């Protein structure tokens, strides 16, 4: 039986809550934006490049101000340990808001929305909802909050994936996404319940101290880890939790594909890193592993499987979106390499890789959209001869793909360099992982280069003259993205410093 709290206790709870709200402003602001967008949609019905998208853009940009102010606040727990504010969370807040902005920008460029949907209605509101959810994922410090925020992201994403209601592929993708999502979050919650059973705690920091204080049954712990990983692995799209990815990426509206492949994956990584770096005791008692298997070895398995599977299966893809889907599975593997290193350098490398992935993947999808606007197709064969017809788009896509391979002088190379440096800074321990990473990136060259191969080396079958110029603003955006991909490949210091800033986690005893 619970006793009712006394007046003084209620007083202190309220005081604590009002204090926490001070540190919760970006989320509140974004929630207001979310509601505002729904209201605007009711007031001003219309097509896509209207009030709604501009409001979303400006609104998301405005949130940067609140996040910036948080940079000067002390790291700490909010809402009774449900939520934390730390540099790691701030890094991801910027990341998700920028992803949201880019998703809106590339939606505005996509002509498919004109033909597929009547009104953009909830679309932008849902993008904002996803931003909120992902921000909360990156800041959650409690298993309850983790689950709630993850579901917020997932449900928004399900609807967005199926946004082309009359397109069967889109609906199929949404349904598949939903089914896999339901199963994997179910498994994850089961894992959480096992951990709660082991420790009696839901807060990650408390779980860690409880585990290291009283020890734990290794078998149960590894089972719980595996189940939790099913949830996280689904979010980051890693093998063997990847089955939804190719279909969803192919069927979803392309801006959503880009958004999911970058932001949703990053959110998964934020969660993964916070959970495993905080909740699991490090250097604790000997219970750490059973038969030499602990959570790091599970991550290693997943990472190797993702790199090999993603890169090898991509070789046979004929559809560019599907090809990029498999490439995104492979990139989950590379990102996991940085997590495995388990130190500040590794975290920094992972965050930097996420930044590079952000630029090059959004860039690649943006060009794919612009090409699809003109040709109406995402098939590799229809890219033949495009290099001549759309010179800037061709060059930009080539740069993004080279960056995805990881060749200098692009940002993708820096990401890989940092990941491999982090691995090798541990001596020869993880050398074999670096070798697999290196070899699979050679494989990846082949399928990425299929796109420039078709664009430049092959002639277009039809010689009809058609205006293929994507327009001034898309050209500028493309050029800017391409410029940054190369610029940060040569002068990556500011972003690497930012990633280092972001590698500070509250309550971390690991580094």
């Amino acid at each position, binding site marked *: 039986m619970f006793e009712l709290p006394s007046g003084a206790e209620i007083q202190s709870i309220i005081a604590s809550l009002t204090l926490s709200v001070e540190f919760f402003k970006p989320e509140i602001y974004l929630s207001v934006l979310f509601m505002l967008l729904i209201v605007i949609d009711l007031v001003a019905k219309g097509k896509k490049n209207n009030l709604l998208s501009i409001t979303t853009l400006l609104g998301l940009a405005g949130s940067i101000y609140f996040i910036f102010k948080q940079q000067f606040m002390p790291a700490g727990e909010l809402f009774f340990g449900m939520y934390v504010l730390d540099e790691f969370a701030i890094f991801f807040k910027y990341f998700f808001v920028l992803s949201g902005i880019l998703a809106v920008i590339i939606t505005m460029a996509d002509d498919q929305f004109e033909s597929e949907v009547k009104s953009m209605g909830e679309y932008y509101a849902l993008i904002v909802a996803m931003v909120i959810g992902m921000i909360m994922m990156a800041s959650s410090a409690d298993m309850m909050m983790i689950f709630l925020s993850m579901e917020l992201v997932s449900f928004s994403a399900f609807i967005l994936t199926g946004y082309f209601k009359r397109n069967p592929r889109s609906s199929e993708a949404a349904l598949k996404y939903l089914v896999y999502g339901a199963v994997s979050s179910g498994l994850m919650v089961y894992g959480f319940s096992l951990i709660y059973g082991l420790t009696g705690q839901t807060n990650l920091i408390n779980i860690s101290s409880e585990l290291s204080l009283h020890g734990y049954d290794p078998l149960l712990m590894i089972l719980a880890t595996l189940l939790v990983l099913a949830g996280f692995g689904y979010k980051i799209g890693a093998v063997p939790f990847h089955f939804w990815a190719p279909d969803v990426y192919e069927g979803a509206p392309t801006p959503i594909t880009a958004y999911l492949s970058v932001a949703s994956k990053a959110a998964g990584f934020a969660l993964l890193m916070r959970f495993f770096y905080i909740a699991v005791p490090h250097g604790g008692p000997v219970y750490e592993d059973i038969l030499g298997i602990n959570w790091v070895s599970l991550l290693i398995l997943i990472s190797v499987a993702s790199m090999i599977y993603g890169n090898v299966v991509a070789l046979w893809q004929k559809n560019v979106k599907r090809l990029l889907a498999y490439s995104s599975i492979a990139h989950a593997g590379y990102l996991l390499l940085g997590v495995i290193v388990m*130190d*500040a*350098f*590794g*975290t*920094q490398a992972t965050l930097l890789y996420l930044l590079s992935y952000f630029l090059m993947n959004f860039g690649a999808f943006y060009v794919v959209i612009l090409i699809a606007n003109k040709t109406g197709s995402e098939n590799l064969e229809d890219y033949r001869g495009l290099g*001549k017809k759309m*010179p800037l788009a061709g060059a930009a896509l*080539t740069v993004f793909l*080279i960056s995805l391979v990881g*060749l*200098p*002088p692009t940002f993708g*190379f820096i990401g*890989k*360099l940092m990941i*491999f*440096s982090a691995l*090798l*800074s541990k*001596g*020869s321990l993880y*050398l074999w992982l*670096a*070798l697999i990473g*290196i*070899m699979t*990136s*050679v494989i990846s*060259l*082949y399928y990425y*280069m299929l796109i*420039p*191969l078709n664009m*430049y*080396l*092959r002639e277009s079958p039809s010689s009809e003259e058609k205006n293929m110029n994507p327009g001034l603003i898309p050209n500028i955006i493309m050029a800017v993205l391409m410029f940054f991909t190369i610029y940060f490949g040569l*002068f*990556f*210091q500011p972003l*690497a*410093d930012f990633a*280092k800033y972001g*590698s500070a986690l509250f309550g971390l005893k690991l*580094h």
Partner: protein
Amino acid sequence: MLSLIVFLPIIAGLIILAVPSSQKQIIRIVSLLAALAQGVVAILIWRAYDPSLPGITAGPGGSPLGSFQFVEKLPWIGLKLGGMASLNIEYFLGVDGISVTMIILTALVSAIGVLSSWTIQKQVKGYFILYNLLASAMMGCFVALDFFLFYVFWELMLLPMYFLIGIWGGPNREYAAIKFFLYTLFGSVFMLLVMIGLYFSVLDPVTGNHTFSLVAMANQANYIQDAILGPHNVMWRYIAFAVLFIGFAIKVPMFPFHTWLPDAHVEAPTPISVILAGVLLKLGTYGMMRINFPLFPEVFHASMYIIGIFGAINIIYGAFCALAQQDLKKMVAYSSISHMGYVLLGLAAGNSEGMVGALYQMFNHGTITAMLFLLVGVIYDRAHTRQIDKFGGLASYMPVYAAIVTVAWFASLGLPGLSGFISEALVFVGAFSSITTRPIAMVSVLGILFGAAYLLWSLQRVFLGKRKPDAAYDLEVGADGHEHIHFHDWKGKIDLDARELTMLVPLVVITIFLGIYPMPVLGMITSSVNKLVEVLTPLAIR
């Protein structure tokens, strides 16, 4: 100075970007001007170069920059990493005896390549942008003294080369281009891991930080004893050496990694073949001399024998393959493989004579093979075929062409009085005087014999005798009663025209001059090579 010579082509490329693609002539002229300016800077470097300074490494107690010249050193990236580590990358350029001749060669071949590209009609703008990017990257590789910078330039060469072969190449270009790309990338990605490993193993003696500086890495005193590639980790040092060696050997190309080269050459347009054979292959052996050997001297010392054997295989296998070719360009490609074998043999000798010979051979092979490919291009332009048995008797109808061909062919087979002879002779002197490579050298001498065989045989079949019945050209009896040659859709001059002569004559002059008086080159490289040999010799033997 060095920044200028590296980035001139890129600047030209940016200018070309702004020129509308219909202005083909302007695009060509801008490229030519950049190449000529590069040549002027190269000459200035050559004149100002002080041959007494050895370079290679700083040496114990030496100045931090070593005795490099025209040094440009700026901090580029200075990054605090998580934990205690930091990442320091420098923009570090410099020249010593090993690179100075390569810079001159690169400038020369790039300029000739631009002239040779004059006949390219398809997508001229794109072509020259990529060409200039390639030229910059090549030059950058030769002057970079920071491993990271070197790696960036090294990888930067791949993409332009892929497109240059892939878009402007022959019928089987897709295959050749991706094969080139995959092979070289396969070699270089492993280099990336070694580079990172070296970074964690070497400390800059001045700042005490980890460093990518090749000058610091070439001094074994700067290694951390227990680091992954430190002196205590013998196994990893052997593996790292092998990985680097394979990475560079793919570029050379060394048997058994050579199969991309004939394909690339056959499909590539003439100017790209010229660049490929004239400069790109040298990067492989240059990388060995600059990075692979001095960073792991003890491993080099232990593997001289193996390198020598591979050199001999290259020489003889390449010559045999050349002997069997029907396609003139493929024959020249295999002759390249054979001649790069001499470089490997000279390096394997590990003594001054051998190394000087190898470096000199790199220069000479650059000029001679550039000539060979240009000459093959000349006949291909006219007849649209390169089959050796489709000609015969050309000498009497194209006398100037035949004369230059004769010089080039004889230079390639190593006739005394031409530059190829001196370098091959030096290589053999070196290889015979080293006990390790003496037996290998004895076998390799056969390569000269086979080399003479395929070169003379092809010369005879194409240029001497009478027109073959199914030849790619027709003969007409003109008004003056003499026979005239006629290629069926060739409108230009039958014999070499002014542009072709401008490309070929300088090379002929260089070949003859350096065959008679090699000191301009040998004088520049000797002190550096001596220093390199000293670095490579283990203390026990020194």
